[in-house]
């Protein structure tokens, strides 16, 4: 064997070792991304939703036969995986316990794996700067705090306390109606002056993520309350909608709808209470 042969064998072996090394490394990274690149966007709601989606996908799709478990342990892991899959399916049909289970899992994923802390949670919802909170943020905070105290009577309690069920006139409407406006939510938020712990903040973020990922969007918490029904976007058009259409030319109006400048039927939620 000549020296060149020995060198050639060594080079081939070295390349083979490198290929195996990178192959295993890439496989490991694909399964679980343990090191995160933290930037300004990391703790925004969008990024968190992506993370939760990816992790739940990994947990439910992991091949248990690859891990090398004993028969009994495999049975148990399968049972746990099935439980999670069932919960992920059940929560889309509005099962309260399944929703709780999925939310608890999201909570743990964010707190223990994603590294959400008191310092960075405000990037998702600006809890520290009330002026930056949207009316949806404020409503979510209020309903969470009320739910902690009154359970599924939270919404009824809030409506009762602030007399939100009174017949009232709103700007641009000729007839009085039953309505809860953004201004009222802002006023209630100021009045309540809520103090949130980190666990409260994370629970609110978890609910927001859940309602966008698996739940029923803005009505997700409302539909769990003790109410007779909830409806959105299907009960006809607001009066202002028709009058505005008549006054504007159609192309311009469509662009205004896109920019959410005009009220649409689906912007409102109808909550039904039977007396």
């Amino acid at each position, binding site marked *: 064997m000549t020296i060149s042969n020995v060198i050639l064998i060594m080079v081939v072996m070295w390349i083979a070792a490198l290929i195996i090394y990178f192959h295993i490394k890439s496989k*490991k990274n694909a399964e679980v991304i*343990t090191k995160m690149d933290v930037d300004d966007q990391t703790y925004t709601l969008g990024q968190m939703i992506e993370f939760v989606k990816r992790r739940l996908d990994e947990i439910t799709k992991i091949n248990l036969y690859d891990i090398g478990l004993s028969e009994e342990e495999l049975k148990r892991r399968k049972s746990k995986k099935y439980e999670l899959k069932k919960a992920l399916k059940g929560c889309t049909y509005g099962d309260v316990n399944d929703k*709780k289970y999925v939310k608890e899992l999201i909570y743990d994923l964010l707190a*223990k794996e994603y590294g959400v802390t008191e310092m960075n949670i405000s990037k998702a919802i600006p809890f520290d700067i009330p002026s930056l909170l949207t009316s949806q943020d404020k409503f979510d905070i209020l309903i969470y705090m009320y739910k902690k105290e009154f359970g599924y009577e939270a919404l009824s309690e809030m409506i009762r306390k602030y007399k939100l069920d009174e017949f009232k006139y709103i700007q641009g409407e000729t007839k009085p109606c039953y309505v809860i406006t953004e201004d009222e939510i802002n006023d209630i938020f100021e009045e309540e002056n809520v103090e949130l712990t980190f666990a409260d903040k994370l629970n609110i973020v978890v609910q927001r993520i859940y309602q966008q990922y698996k739940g029923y969007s803005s009505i997700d918490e409302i539909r769990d309350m003790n109410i007779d029904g909830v409806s959105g976007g299907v009960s006809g058009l607001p009066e202002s909608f028709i009058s505005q259409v008549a006054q504007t030319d159609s192309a311009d109006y469509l662009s205004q709808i896109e920019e959410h400048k005009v009220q649409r039927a689906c912007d409102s939620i109808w909550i039904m209470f039977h007396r």
Partner: protein
Amino acid sequence: MSIITFWNGTEDEVGTTTSSIAFATQVAIEHNIRVLLISTSLNDSTIKDSFWQESKKKSFGIFTDNRSKMIENNGLEGLDRVIRSNKVTPEAVRDYTKIVLKNRLEILLGLEGTDEAMQKQYMIMQEKYPQIMELADHYYDMVIVDLDKKIKNATRLEILKKSHIVVTMVSQKAKSIQKINELIKQNDILNEENTVMTIGKYMDNTRYNAKNITRNLLKKRDIINTIPYNNLLFEATQEGKIIDLYFNFIRLREKDENYYFVKEIKRLYANIKGKIEILQMERKI
């Protein structure tokens, strides 16, 4: 179908956790029953270290699995998630335990973590132990609880109340034994029917041995239970070799110095079984 709690009612160190480990292992090996050992501790790895040796991290980077930040899906932490979402069943408790001997001995590990969040979580989670004990009782033949000192007073009382038998561990000090005896007589937290007083880390070659304590201090006929100090047990609990130790203990003969230890745990089991049978006859459990 019985819940047995090992509780140290004194301030002395009497090896409560080690005693519960020894008892659970011996019962699981000698009798064909399903035993669950529940750890109620925070950051106490005694139970874990007794059954498993922590695998050392491999130095070759590509084969190591850096999952330290992954959420825990086993033990109390995983089970707590199920409890919080009202989805807990006796079978669910089983799914979150670790198997030591298939169909014989399983362990529900406590919490681990030094950060403040974990401390808070432990304070909340410990309230779930009574519920877990009751659920586990439906699935396992014997549920053994190692009651930690860090458990809040109210929760501790609830656990003791829900236990069918309380193995009250005491040291060999006369004052400690008298204190627990008074507690039993008060019939409040403990009572004669369901309490088995047991001396932990027991030494026989002293004037305060079990016979003299029973006769002179307790003024009773039945000799007080003991769990003698055992060197091999002490070593095995640190090396993850409890099961190996007990497989060796099976072959012990009367002349062996360790036989006394095995015999005393047998006696403890017989006493507990006797009390359970009486309680069952009286339809109290």
